[in-house]
C-alpha cells in the first residue's frame, strides 16, 4: 500500500566525480542559506518590544477594592469552590467597628491565597464571584526562585489604592448584559430593606 508519494528508491551506484568533490551540491546548499540572508527575522526583542496581548487576556488575578477603597471580597468561598485546580484558599474574618473603610461588608477574607503553580488561568473564579471582587488581568505572573513564592497572598493580590487596576476590558458587553439579570444583586451593598425586593427566577 502506498501512503505518500515521497517514497524514494535507494540506489547504491558509485558516485560520479562531481558528486565526489561535493562542489555542485555545496553550491546548491549555499544558495539556499544565502536566500535566508534577505528574509525578515521573526524575532521580537522581548523586553523592549512586547507581543500584543488580547484585551481579555487571563493573567495574574487582582482582588478589587470599591471606589471608596474598601475590599470587595466577602470571603464567601464561591471562587474556591469553582476553581477546578483547587488553587484558592482563604480564611474569613469579621469586620470590627471602625474598619468600615477597609472592608465593604461585615465578613471579609482575613487571608486569601492563590497558588499560581496550580492555577490554570481558566477564569472560573471571576465568573463565580458574586461581588465582582476577583478578576483576571493582562499582567503576567513573575518568575520566582522558590516554589513557595508562587503562593500569592493578599499582599500581592489586593490592588493598591495608588495603582488601581483597570478591569473594564474584562467587562465585555455579554458580561454587562448578564449582570442585568434580575435577582443577581451583583454590585449592591447588603441592605436588609432591599433583601426581599429582588425577584429570583
Amino acid at each position, binding site marked *: 500500500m502506498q501512503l505518500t508519494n515521497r517514497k524514494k528508491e535507494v540506489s547504491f551506484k558509485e558516485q560520479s566525480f562531481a558528486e*565526489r*568533490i*561535493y562542489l555542485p551540491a555545496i553550491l546548491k546548499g549555499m544558495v*539556499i542559506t544565502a536566500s*535566508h540572508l534577505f528574509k*525578515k*527575522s521573526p524575532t521580537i*526583542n522581548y523586553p523592549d518590544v512586547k507581543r500584543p496581548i488580547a484585551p481579555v487576556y487571563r493573567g495574574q488575578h487582582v482582588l478589587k477594592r470599591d471606589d471608596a477603597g474598601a475590599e470587595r471580597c466577602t470571603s464567601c468561598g464561591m471562587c474556591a469552590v469553582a476553581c477546578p485546580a483547587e488553587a484558592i484558599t482563604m480564611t474569613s474574618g469579621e469586620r470590627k467597628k471602625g474598619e468600615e473603610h477597609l472592608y465593604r461588608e461585615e465578613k471579609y477574607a482575613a487571608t486569601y491565597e492563590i497558588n499560581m503553580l496550580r492555577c490554570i488561568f481558566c477564569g472560573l473564579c471571576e465568573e463565580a464571584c458574586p461581588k465582582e471582587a476577583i478578576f483576571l488581568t493582562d499582567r503576567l505572573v513573575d518568575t520566582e526562585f522558590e516554589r513557595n513564592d508562587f503562593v500569592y497572598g493578599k499582599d500581592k493580590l489586593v490592588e493598591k489604592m495608588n495603582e488601581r487596576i483597570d478591569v473594564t476590558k474584562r467587562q465585555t458587553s455579554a458580561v454587562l448584559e448578564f449582570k442585568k439579570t434580575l435577582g443577581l444583586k451583583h454590585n449592591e451593598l447588603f441592605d436588609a430593606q432591599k433583601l426581599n425586593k429582588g425577584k429570583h427566577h
Partner: protein
Amino acid sequence: MTAFIIYKAIMCGGVFLLCLAAAAYATLWERKFAAFLQDRKGPSRAGWGGILQPVADGVKMFMKEEIIPNVSNRSLFILGPSLFMITAVITSSVVPWAKPVMIDGQVYDMQITDINIGVIYLLGVASIGVYGIMIGGWSSNNKFALLGAVRASSQMISYEIPMGIALIALIISSGGSLSLKEIVEGQDAGFANIVWQPLGFLIFFICALAETNRAPFDLPECETELVGGYHTEYSSMKLGLFLFAEYINMFISSAVMATLYFGGYNFPFAHELYEKLGLADGSVWISIIGFGALMTKIFGFICLFMWIRWTLPRFRYDQLMNLGWKSLLPLSLLNLAITVVVEYFRGNIKF
C-alpha cells in the same frame, strides 16, 4: 637607525592590534552572520547592536575559573594555546597591507618584513600551528583531547600538500617570485592571479578552510563526538586563546588569499582613480585607499568562510581524507600540469 626601529615597532604594533581587533569583531560578525542566515537577530544586548559583545566575551573569559588538570603536563599544557596564538599572529608579518608610503624621501613598506621566501614562510608557520593543537591535546592527558589532536595533525598535514602544489602553480604563473610583495606588485598592472589560477584558487581555498579548522573541516574540535576535541580540558582564557587564534588564522588566511589571488591592495582601475584624484606615487592616501581595498577583500573572504560554515555539515573523517588525498591532490597536480602548459604558451617559462 632610530627611525627604522620606530617604523618597525609601529608596523608590528599596528599589525598586531589589527589582527586582534579583526579577530574580536570576526567573533561578533560570525554570530551576527549565523543569525542572519538562520532568520535570527544575533547578539544585540551589549552596546548598540551588540557592538561591545567581544569586550563582554573577553571579560567573561578572563573571569572564568582556570583549571589545569592534575594529570596534565603542566608546562606543555600552558605552551599549547600560547604556541597556537603565536603562530597565528606571526603569519601576518609577511602580508603587504598597503602600497609603500613616501615620507621625506624615505620609502616605507606597509609590511612588517619582506622576505624573499614569503610564501614558504607562510606554509612553514601554518604547519607549526598544528603543534599548538597537538601539544595542547596531548598534554591534557585526555582521550578526547588526544583524538582531536591526532585528527588535527593528520588533517593539516594532508591538506598542506595540495595547498603547496596549488601555490607552486601560482608562483609559476605569477612570475616565479616567492616574495609576497612582488606577487602583489605583479598583479598591479595586469590581471589578478585568479584569472590564471581559478582551479588553483579553489584548491587553495578548500585547503585554507582545512588549515584554519573551520567547518566543514572542524573535526579537531568536533563537539558532537569529541566533547571539545583538543581543547576539552581547557578553560578560561586559555580556551579563549584557542578560539581567538582560530579567528586570527581566518583573518590571516583571508588576507593571504586576497594577496596571492585577488591582487591584495590593488583593485581594478586603481591608477585611473588615483590620477583623477591627483595623487602622486607614495602618497599616504593611496596607501589608505589600497588598505581599504584589501580589507574589503578580506571581509568578503571572512563572510565566505562563515557562509560555508553555516551551510555545510561536518565531514566524516574518511570523507575528509578521501577528499584530501583522492580528489584535491590529483586536482592540484592537474592544475600544475595545466599551468605549465599555459605558461609555456604565454612565454613565461622556457625549456
